[in-house]
């Protein structure tokens, strides 16, 4: 479904992604782990072109999205993204946060968009916050709304950029639960995270990245049980001890 070849990204002199090659199949739950600054978020952001790759190709469903003249907006409509900092629209009510894109992009009527949004709010268990403003929500609630907002465009792929890293510990669970439900429904997911438990239980495949390189990939079970690369070993040793 997604294939990445020879992906490089430079920020000025900084070489943050070094020749990444990867394929992601439909329905896969790919989890990307690695120390901070390893390029995992940049990798994720290259998939929907929030970062433009310096070189290399990203192909989604046979379409080369890195080619010139591609309608980036069309590409992004198929891919939902969830951010570490939620990035809800603070001037809009919860329901309007979710209906904005379907109304403006898909020309959906307000009623129809609201109906879909309400169904999604039921799903993330926040229907009672329908008319609240983001400032009135907790971090965990904000992130669940952000997931609902992304789902309203009925994406085929969901990208998660450290979705629980900005949350208080007691709110991590509710967000992971929503993501787990989503995984159970067969959504294709790419998740950058520090939640090793989630990686192990929900991930169907695991990438370990360090210093801009894709060091090791495999099933979470294999990598957690027997990491091959020494950098993976030392990273896992540090994070799993905690």
């Amino acid at each position, binding site marked *: 479904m997604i294939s990445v070849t020879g992906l490089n990204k430079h920020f000025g002199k900084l070489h943050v992604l070094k020749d990444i090659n990867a394929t992601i199949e439909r329905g896969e739950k790919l989890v990307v782990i690695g120390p901070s600054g390893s390029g995992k978020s940049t990798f994720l952001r290259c998939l929907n072109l929030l970062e433009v790759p310096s070189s290399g190709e990203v192909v989604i469903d046979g379409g080369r999205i890195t080619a010139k003249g591609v309608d980036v907006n069309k590409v*992004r409509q198929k891919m939902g993204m969830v951010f570490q*900092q939620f990035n809800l629209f603070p001037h809009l009510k919860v329901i309007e946060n979710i209906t904005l894109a379907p109304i*403006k992009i898909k020309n959906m009527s307000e009623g129809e968009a609201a109906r879909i949004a309400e169904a999604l709010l039921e799903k993330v268990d926040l229907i009672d916050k329908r008319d609240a403003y983001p400032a009135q929500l907790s971090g965990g609630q904000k992130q669940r709304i952000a997931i609902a907002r992304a789902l309203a*465009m009925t994406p085929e792929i969901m990208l998660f950029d450290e979705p629980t890293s900005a949350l208080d510990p007691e709110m991590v669970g509710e967000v992971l639960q929503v993501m787990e439900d989503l995984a159970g429904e067969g959504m294709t997911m790419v998740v950058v995270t520090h939640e090793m438990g989630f990686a192990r239980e929900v991930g169907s495949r695991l990438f370990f990245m360090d210093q801009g390189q894709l060091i090791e990939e495999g099933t979470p079970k294999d990598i957690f049980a027997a990491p091959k690369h020494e950098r993976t070993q030392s990273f896992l040793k540090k994070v799993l001890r905690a």
Partner: protein
Amino acid sequence: MAFLDRFLEMVYVNAIAYGRWQMFMDGLVITLQITAGAAILGVIIGLALTFFKMSGILPLELFAKLYISVIRGTPVVLQLLIINATIFATARGMGVWVGIVAFGINSGAYVCEIVRAGIQSIDKGQTEAGRSLGLSSRQTMSFIVLPQAVKNILPALANESIILIKETSIVGFVAVADITRVSQQISSRTFNVMPMFVAAVFYLVLVSILTFFLSKLEKKLRESDVR
């Protein structure tokens, strides 16, 4: 009581008698006309400059940059005198228009900075969230960034209009009888400082009215921030 009587008489002579009340009113009208006209022109110029600056078209960007640095780098009195002596060199009785154009051109540079700062104050994550949903950059700007930026821009704009009201008091330099100029004229007749105090009270009242509406506006704009 003698003091109070003397004071009231002074007010009467300096602000009311001999049609001086009417002179003050005429001056007030001129001050308000110049302020309102310059505010409108300033917003138009300011928005145009902002658009130029963010257009990504180099000549337009450079023009906006040059405009702002020249206007902000020179005294507004000089700008007024220059405009009076160039654009309006042959026009007679166009004093109000000289003021509107001069202060409008001046205010435009500041409005541009206000609008730009307002837009830039919106977190980059907002734009990214909009774009990640598939909204175009224009849609993201008009539905997500601008509505939030307005919250920062409107109070600053109202503030700019307060500055503008007071700034117009130098329009007397080109012989326009605004309220400051009127007070000076009366003062030179009565050999008394009282008319200037009267003018000061007029400005104070005008600014207070604007400030009152400004704080109401800010409260209204903060509604979605309530926790």
